[in-house]
Every structure is written in C-alpha cells, then in structure tokens.
C-alpha cells in the first residue's frame, strides 16, 4: 500500500517536472505571435537548414551504418569489440568534445584539414561541417538499433535462403533487411531526431551563420538574445517534431512486419 502510494507520488512529481517546462513554452507565447514568427527569415532559414541537413546526415548514417551493423551482428572478427566501442563513443562524449575534436581534425589548421586546405577544400564553418557534426553525434543511435534488430533476425531464414542458392546480396536485401525493417526505421528516426537537436558540436565546428550553419537549436540560442518570440516558436517546432518522432518510433516498433 505504502509502496503503491510512494510510486504514485514519485511518478506524478516526475511527470510534472517534465511537462511543466514543455507546457510553459506554449503558454509563454500568443498564437498570433507564434504565427508571425513563422514567417521570419531567421526562423524559416533555420527550419529548412535543419530539415535538409538532418535528412542528409541520416541518409549518410544509414548508408555507412547498415553494413557496419550487419557485419558486427553476424561476423566475429578480431577487434569487433573495439569497433563496437568506437561506434558507441559519440553517445557518451559531450557534444563540446565532439565539436573541438572535429575542429582539430577538419579545421583549416587541423590534422586532416590542413591537407584539404591545399586543394582549396574548406569544411569548418560550412554547411558540410553541420552535416559532419550531425553524423558524428547521431550515428550511434542508428547503428546500435540496427545491430540489435539484425541480431534478432533468426538465422534459420538466412540459412534456408542460402541453401536454396541465394547470393549474400539476396540474403541481405531479401531476407535479413526486410525482417529487421522495423528496427532499422526506428533507428533512422532516432538518429534523425538527434541530428535535428545537435547544438554543441555544430556551434563549435560549423559556427553560427543564418541560412548556412544556423540550425534550429543555434537559432534558438541566437534569437534568445533579441527576439524571444522567435526563440520560443523554434522551440515549439522542435517539441512538436520530437513528439512526432517518439510517437512514430513507438508505432513502428510495435507493428509486425
């Protein structure tokens, strides 16, 4: 009895703690001000830049992450644990660490960047840098999920396909991937959401320039200095997108393919 009561109290306290700040965003701005903000260039630029870069970085993560996840789920090779640890690293690294690390690597005077500079290739403080920062921080979310869903696929199906003469490509694309589909999609959506929310690595590595590197979180940070309505509007958009992301992941992972 005491136990149930205690759980109920703790649960409701925590729920309030999470919902009050989010609800406050909606309460602190009039609907007209919200709609007016949506037409402001700083908001529109940030919104489109964020959606475009997060989409591109998710595609990159899927292209590079799927084979990696499949290999690590299916084959035991020397150093697999090291690869696993390295791919997980960005989850626990503070974004500021990611930002300074990327700058030290790809900045104009960076370990790699100084050679790219010779060819006139500049990465830091461009839209490419935004995408690199997003790929760096968001990739583990997809790779972990993809690896788990590949591991959950029963090898019996793959073996059956193989004994019937299917090539490794056919097995991967006609058997394994379709069976792991739900997990792959939810992994990609989570990775997209993380890319959308990326702030620390972006502002350090890509800088803050409207229309080029100023994504939604950076625009919130910048407009808060002058136009609080724009900052709150952007925050509301991000809340709505985040909510949609979680809801979609829940639906996708529950459905049976």
């Amino acid at each position, binding site marked *: 009895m*005491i*136990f149930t009561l*205690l759980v109920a109290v*703790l649960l409701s306290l925590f729920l309030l703690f999470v919902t009050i700040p989010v609800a406050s965003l909606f309460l602190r701005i009039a609907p007209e001000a919200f709609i007016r903000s949506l037409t402001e260039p700083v908001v529109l630029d940030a919104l489109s830049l964020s959606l475009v870069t997060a989409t591109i970085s998710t595609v990159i993560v899927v292209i590079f992450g799927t084979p990696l996840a499949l290999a690590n789920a299916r084959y035991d090779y020397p150093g697999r644990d090291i690869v696993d640890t390295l791919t997980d690293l960005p989850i626990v690294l503070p974004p500021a660490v990611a930002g300074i690390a990327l*700058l030290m690597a790809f*900045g*104009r*005077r960076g370990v790699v960047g100084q050679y790219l500079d010779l060819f006139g290739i500049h990465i*830091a*403080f*461009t839209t490419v840098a935004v995408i690199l920062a997003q790929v760096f921080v968001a990739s583990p979310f997809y790779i972990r999920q993809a690896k788990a869903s590949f591991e959950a696929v029963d090898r019996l199906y793959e073996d059956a396909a193989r004994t019937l003469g299917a090539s490794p490509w056919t097995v991967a694309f006609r058997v394994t991937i379709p069976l792991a589909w739900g997990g792959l999609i939810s992994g990609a959506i989570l990775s997209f959401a993380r890319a959308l929310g990326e702030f620390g690595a972006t*502002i350090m590595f*890509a*800088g*803050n*320039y*409207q229309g080029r*590197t*100023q994504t939604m979180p950076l625009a919130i*940070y*910048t407009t*808060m*200095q*002058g136009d*609080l309505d724009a900052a709150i509007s952007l925050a509301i958009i991000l809340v709505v997108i985040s909510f949609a992301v979680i809801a979609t992941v829940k639906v996708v992972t529950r459905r049976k393919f």
Partner: protein
Amino acid sequence: MKRSTPATLVAVSLLIIAGLLVAGCTDTQETPGDAVTLNVFTAASLTGAFTDIGKAFEAENENIKVVFVFSGSQDLRTQIEHGADADIFVSANMKHMNTLKDSGFMVDDTVAQFVENCLIMVTPADNPAGIEGLADLAEPGVKLVIGTKDVPFGDYTRQLLDNMAADPEYGEEYRDAVMANVISEETAVTSVMPKLTLGEADASFVYKSDISKDDRDKLKRFEIPSKYITENPIYPIGVLAESTHKAEAESFIAFVRGPAGSDILTDYGFDPIPVEN
C-alpha cells in the same frame, strides 16, 4: 540480474528523498563566518579585468566574497529579468542597462558609466589572408567572424561598416562584400578569440580590451580610423534593486572606480572614466 523487492525500492527512494531534503535545507548561499557573497553579472569582455579586480577586492575585504557570472550583456539582462540573483550588473553598452533601469531593476543613482572601450580589427599573428587594412576585408575568400547584431561588439561592427559604406572611398559594395565574407556570427567575444588564435578565421572586429595578455603575441591589431567611429562603447555599472547587500555592492563599485581598479582596467586596454564630483 537479481530482482529488487518492493522493500528495497522503498528504502532507496526514501534515501533519495532524504538526500534531496537535506540538500534543499542546507544553505549554500552564505559561507560561514558571516561572509557576504556578491553576485556580479559582468559582460564577457570584462572577464580578465574583473577577475583580477575581484581578487584584489577580496584581499582588501576579507568578509566579502565576489562571485562573477560572465556572459554576453544581453544574456545577463535576460537572466536578471527572469529572476537571477544578482547584486551588480556590468553591461557592455548602455542599451541593456537602460532597459533594466526603465523596468525598475536597478538602484538608479548607483548606475554610472565607468569605462570606455574601442573597436579594433584583429587577425592571427601570421595573418593567413595577408590583411593590411580595412580594405582587404572585402577580398573574396577572406574568412571573417563578427558578433551577431544583438550583441554590442557585433552592433558596433555593423555601425562601422555602415559608416564606411557611406564614404565614397569604400561605398555600399564594400560593406556587402565584407558581410559576404562572414563565416560565423558569434554571441560572445569569448567565442571569437579561439577562432582567430587557432587560425580558423582570418579577421574579426573586437574591443581593444578583448585581447588578453596571453593572446597579444598570437594576434595582430589594426586601429580603426576615428572618422568611421560614431561613438565608442561605454560600459555602465550599477546595483540591482533586489540586492540584499547594497552597501557591499557600492563599496565594490567604488573599488572598481578607485585607483586599484582603474590600474587593472587600463592594463587590460580599457579607458576608465573618472568619477564625477
């Protein structure tokens, strides 16, 4: 994994709650021995000077501890407006101070202009873009970092470029070309410096005082002709109306404006404004 029983869960939860209660009841504001803590919200450009002034002040006043919050003036103003616990506000321009004054956040007669600053152009010491003067900033490919329009040093930069655009020698095309070379807009001068010292940016406009002693060898400084300067940045300081330590706050301000404070400020590149009598 062993399943935890309800009893252990309750015990752990109670421990956490007890811990929170103890933490909540402990007064972290005051240090023992009746020492007073002054929270000084200070514009980021004063970080070096005020850190030194704080130490000198504490050495003379053992019962007063000075805690600084350094950030952009706008950010500090927003924090104060939303209830941050500040005793003194030091702004990098009059605008934010006046806004707070008008809304009754300040003790009006304590607010005073105490230092002047000036905008300069800086490049990394090895000057990768080969910049020799303001005119070179319009060259294609120059990587420029400036402040956002809402922070004072970004505002003064735009004012400067507008003044140059009005001069036929440079013209509107100059301003547009310079603005097209901007690779990043920063909300605080503290995030401009690393980009220059690391050589990631070719040039920036900052306050003369922004160059710390450590950075003096790493950067090259260019003065700006005074005909393009409308006004120099003036820093106001003042005591917050909600401060519970107004007497101590006023003695800190007196120290800042006194000989010791003025020497430190001058050393950091500021021009102290003498106290009016």
